[in-house]
């Protein structure tokens, strides 16, 4: 039996009736068309589907849409302000923190979450903080540089 949910996604309020088994990532992609959030692994390992739920990073493949009822979701498509990218997005472009780009939405949102808690992470803290996000292209070095650059853009000292 469908359940009614009210969820704010990237600043827009949505009301929907969802099947309990529908995963949050599928609701975002299939019903709302917000396909910036991608499915990578289906095993909770890769973090490509990371979004912010009430400001904290979560894996949207491991949360039911019905569990998001009443929450505020931020996807990669809600980070920019108008034409101005979020500093983390700008830093990933500047430092080329990607190759194929598939992991990038999740990497960016995981970074936003990490820097909110720790504005000046060490390299070790960055690598540990992003270990829920897998990148099969870059070897992570440019991703770490991007996070360090983003910390600087956002007022950190490193």
């Amino acid at each position, binding site marked *: 039996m469908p359940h009614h949910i009210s969820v704010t996604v990237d600043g827009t309020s949505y009301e929907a009736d969802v099947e309990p*088994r529908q*995963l949050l990532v599928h609701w975002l992609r299939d019903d709302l068309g917000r396909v910036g959030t991608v499915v990578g692994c289906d095993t909770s390992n890769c973090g490509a589907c990371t979004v912010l739920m009430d400001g904290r990073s979560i894996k949207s493949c491991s949360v039911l849409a*019905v*569990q998001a009822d009443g929450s505020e979701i931020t996807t990669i498509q809600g980070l920019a302000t108008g034409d101005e990218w979020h500093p983390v997005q700008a830093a990933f472009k500047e430092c080329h923190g990607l190759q194929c780009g598939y992991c990038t939405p999740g990497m960016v949102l995981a970074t936003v979450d990490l820097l909110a808690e720790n504005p000046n992470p060490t390299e070790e803290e960055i690598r540990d903080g992003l*270990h*829920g996000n897998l990148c099969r292209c870059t070897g992570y070095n440019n991703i770490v540089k991007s996070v360090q650059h983003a910390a600087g853009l956002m007022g950190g000292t490193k």
Partner: protein
Amino acid sequence: MIPAAFDYVRPSTVDEAVAALVAGGEDAKVLGGGQSLMPVLRLRMGAPSVLVDCSRIDELKGISDAGGAIVIGAGVTHDDVEKSALVREHVALLAKVTATVADRQIRHRGTLGGALAHADPAGDQPGTALALGATFTIAGPAGRRTVPASEFFVDYFTTAVGPDEVLVSVSFPKHAGWGAHYERFNRTAQAWAIVGAAATVRMDGGTIAEARVALTNMGPSPVRATTVEAALVGVSTLAGIAAAAAHAADGTRPTGDIHADPEYREHLARVLTRRAVAAAAGI
């Protein structure tokens, strides 16, 4: 993959949750943070008829100081456990272990109570709860009961929590002033422990006055290394710790799998116990 269809209820009290589990019968399942259950559903390794979502029951949410113990609601997330000042001060071992669970995203959703009730033999927190002498409060149709950690973990993925019961809270006796450390051996950052060792130690000067050690993945359930604990009393050197840790695998029955055969797990138990105790003792 997409889970098989199920019904969903979201109780707001423990009594409502128990009633929903009774009504749902044997195929009803508690949903906490869902970080263990959701992969099971997606892979269709399980297909419950109804999920009882306990994530919005206020009683399951708090961390409180009960005098001699810190009581943690079963629905408190790993992230909140790890960052709790009460837990860090009085139950440092739990805070340290919890900080190593999975990754940030999963710690934001997953709950301590869920991980303990799931009872994965490779999970890091069951052994920790055993080492710390935790007690578990469980609610069911007949009311509430309290179960010690030594009786809580029954078998692979099996605890004292019955199919129509809900884990309400876990009480950890205070270990303020004890040194604590957890050592885990695994292949990659996110992998489950091949073996883990949890150690918490009370020092008297430079000498170990009391120690509690528990092992992860050395059997179907976590085990206390009681021979090691006894041998550690009075020890003040690394050689003494190593001699005590040599007994870490005594009485265990680890399985063999693709990652390690039983003999290798026994070796790991001795090595990790030595390292965990030395770090906890600052020796």
